[in-house]
């Protein structure tokens, strides 16, 4: 055996390997997959958090099903929680109390499940924002973006349905609002509601049905989508940030085996630990304090889970001014627009974005190197405007609490949010774009002149200047990624000055105008060579002299 040969595989392992390979011919594929490379960057862990919290949801959810009884049959509680003994309630609520007080570790599992749900949706959102701002949704990854939007949508629905299962007061109110929104749909609303609820609200069917959706159908679809998401990711590989050696053709990072598997494993345990720590020390959804659902009472100041907040807020903000009747039949825009329209706008907008952007810029190239957000100012500004819109909706969902805490008139807060919902995104767009362009200018400066070292030197003329130093090769790489970004597709005017037929049509005109608007303000990096500026100071006298002339 030569010295550099790997140690022979232990017999048992060889046995297993051969057993599998005899049946599947996997040696080559297996090696290829174990060699898969994962770029090193913290922002790639956001999607991992989502995956790990989903796994935790599956694990804890299965435990909850062992005791949870999804029935709306009436029962009188006689479990060990004294305060509610003798109170009439549904079996669903009674069994949730049972999990909380009569199953050891039951409260912990419930709280892990709930915290994991909150973190699952939160990590999806932040992961999506990362993908959006770095342009990682661009060709060839549009399909995975669409799958992501579907996962996000279903996750919210799944969370809403889970929140509804324990049949405590807030959960019943959530179901009521859901039913109210269904009812508002013209023509089919009442039918949808009657079919979904098996009759009028609340009926006796809704919890068993939501239960089926919550533990079987939606998790099944989510699992399939997540599997598809990962298969595509595996095949196309991650995007990577610009840097040395990282090109459109080659991905650089940590290989699956042995390093990434161990890193990722560790990160799974960290995620699990954080969620369990929250569940152990921070109370969440104390259903025993809320009491069972009754359709006749409510407590004020109720807050839904955070991911429903934007819907709650939009329902609060949107006025009834635009409601109208057609021959006595009501079109209830005050519910339809905020209850369904805003959701449609959010998810529809997200889904459409990659295609809209590609249509505007005409850029149909394959992109594996991620954009720095500043280098796509209009996209970044749109994203920030979108976050602002969402954030205003979300905050408006707590306007009663804000009004109470800050002693502001309740209706004044509503008005503030109504106005800010329109102004906020516009301001955010302008400011974000400005900041991006400013950063571009600074980047160009740095590329040409090196970075400001913070050291001050006195020139022979007595003048003080800051010493610029050469940026590292890595920095130069990153900065140079701004070059050639702005893509000019086929020219719309041919050599004879005749416009191409496509660009003469109204759509073509609109498109070229948008394309111009999309990139017009970008700082040009054309022809900028690293460190060609005259402001470099290496401490030599000659160079100081040179600066002095400027």
């Amino acid at each position: 055996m030569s010295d550099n040969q790997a140690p022979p595989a232990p017999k048992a392992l060889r046995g297993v390997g051969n057993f599998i390979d005899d049946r599947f011919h996997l040696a080559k594929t297996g090696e290829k997959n174990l060699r898969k490379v994962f770029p090193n960057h913290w922002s790639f862990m956001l999607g991992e958090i989502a995956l790990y919290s989903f796994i935790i949801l599956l694990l804890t959810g299965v435990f909850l099903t062992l005791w949870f009884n999804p029935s709306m049959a009436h029962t009188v509680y006689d479990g060990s929680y004294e305060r509610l003994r003798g109170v009439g309630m549904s079996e669903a609520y009674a069994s949730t109390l049972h999990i909380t007080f009569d199953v050891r570790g039951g409260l912990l599992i419930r709280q892990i499940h709930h915290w994991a749900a909150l973190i699952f949706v939160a990590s999806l959102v932040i992961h999506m924002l990362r993908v959006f701002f770095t342009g990682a949704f661009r060709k060839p990854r549009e399909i995975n973006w669409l799958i992501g939007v579907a996962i996000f949508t279903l996750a919210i629905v799944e969370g809403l349905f889970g929140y509804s299962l324990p049949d405590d007061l807030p959960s019943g109110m959530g179901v009521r609002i859901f039913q109210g929104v269904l009812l508002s749909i013209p023509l089919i609303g009442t039918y949808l509601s009657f079919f979904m609820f098996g009759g009028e609200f609340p009926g006796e069917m809704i919890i068993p049905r939501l239960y089926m959706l919550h533990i079987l159908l939606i998790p099944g679809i989510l699992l399939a989508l997540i599997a598809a998401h990962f298969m595509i990711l595996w095949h196309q590989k991650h995007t990577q940030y610009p840097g040395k050696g990282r090109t459109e053709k080659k991905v650089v990072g940590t290989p699956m085996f042995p390093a990434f598997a161990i890193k990722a494993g560790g990160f799974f345990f960290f995620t699990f630990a954080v969620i369990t720590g929250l569940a152990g020390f921070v109370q969440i959804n104390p259903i025993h304090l809320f009491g069972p659902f009754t359709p006749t009472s409510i407590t004020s100041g109720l807050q839904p889970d955070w991911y429903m907040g934007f819907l709650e807020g939009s329902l609060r903000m949107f006025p009834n001014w635009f409601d109208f009747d057609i021959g006595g039949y009501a079109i209830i825009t005050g519910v339809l627009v905020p209850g369904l329209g805003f959701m449609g706008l959010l998810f529809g907008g997200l889904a459409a974005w990659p295609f809209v952007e590609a249509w505007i810029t005409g850029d149909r190239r394959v992109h594996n190197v991620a954009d720095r957000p500043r280098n796509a100012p209009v996209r970044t500004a749109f994203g920030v405007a979108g976050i602002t819109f969402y954030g205003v909706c979300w905050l408006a969902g707590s306007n009663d609490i804000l009004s109470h805490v800050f002693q502001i008139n309740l209706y004044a807060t509503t008005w503030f949010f109504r106005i800010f919902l329109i102004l906020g995104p516009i301001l955010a767009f302008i400011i974000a774009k400005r900041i991006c362009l400013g950063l571009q200018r600074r980047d160009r400066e740095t590329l040409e002149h090196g970075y400001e070292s913070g050291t001050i030197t006195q020139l022979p003329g007595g003048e003080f200047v800051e010493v610029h130093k050469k940026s590292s090769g890595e920095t130069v790489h990153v900065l140079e990624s701004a070059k050639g970004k702005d893509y000019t597709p086929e020219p719309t005017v041919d050599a004879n000055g005749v416009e191409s037929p496509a660009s003469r049509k109204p759509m073509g005109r609109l498109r070229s105008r948008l394309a111009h608007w999309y990139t017009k303000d970008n700082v040009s990096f054309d022809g900028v060579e690293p460190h060609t500026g005259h402001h470099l100071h290496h401490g030599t006298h000659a160079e100081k002299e040179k600066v002095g002339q400027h």
Partner: protein
Amino acid sequence: MTDNTNHHDAASGADEPRERVIGTPSAADGAATATGDPHRRHEGPYPAEETHTRSEETQRKGERIAALWFLIAFLAGVGFFVSYFSFPPNADGDPSVADPGIAQLANVLLGGTLTLSLFAIGAGMTVWARQVLPHYEVSSPYDELPSSKEEKGSFSEFFMRGANESGFTKRPLMRRTLLLAMAPLGLAPIVLLRDTGPLPKDTLKSTTWEDGLHMVVEGTDRRITAADLDEVGSMVTALPESHDPEHGLSMNEQAKTVILLIKMDPQDFGPDMTQQQLDWTHDGIVAYSKICTHVGCPAALYERTTHRILCPCHQSTFDAANGAEVVFGPAHRPLPQLPVRVDDEGYLVAAGDFSAPVGPTFWDAGVED
């Protein structure tokens, strides 16, 4: 792979400085650098210039720290079981977590030990990855997109030949009848949903309130007299008296019939009340549906000085002195009014059903049948 005579050096003595070809960037924390030539003096599965091995000293330290974490994880895991069994069931079969305080304590102990155990495993694995494993900067090609012209051409030719041979393109009768055959099957699952619930018909437009039905305070079976509401500004949530005192009202009945009974100074009724609406009141007592016409929360808050009813969900505000018309917020229409009168014995009773369908506004809520 070829010879590597330094193999044993690396394994045997960490203190002996290993011969290294310098030229590759060194990773953080004093990591030693692998050789420039991927095939010389290198044992790893990836090319040496893409593998930044840690020094033996770092690795040894990492091993010890990781092991310490794993040990902590083990102990915390044992602690989890100890916590679990420290809360044994009571003699009568109830586990002793029944008390909310103890439930909280059990939760902290179980959660705390589990957290520590999970965290320590995570920490150990991270130390392993960062101090024992090399730092990798392995590069690997992205897939070439799209397929070459030849590949595409060959595929498309193959596919079209197959499609032709199958008859799918050439024999439209067969193709169309197959699609036709699929249509009913595709619809079947949707049709099967038909029996998930009854048709709405007019169910949403009426409630069980009727002339002469007594009102009781919600949550009791105490009938209400006009005198119970003698103080101006008082407000009571009420329900119809149940015909079946044994079981009380169903949830569905409660969700539709619940009302707010409000006592006002009759002088305060505003100009927007029609004569009919005034007739539906009794001595300043007016009844409105408690279910918000926006999306159905109980509109539970009443402000006596302004006569305003506020729904806490989305803050629709109704003016109780003016037929509960909407004065702020998203609701589409006023809260329906329930006509009230007093019977011979002085009890408050309904004088009929609500003036309009109760609850969230739906498409044909305003249409009379």
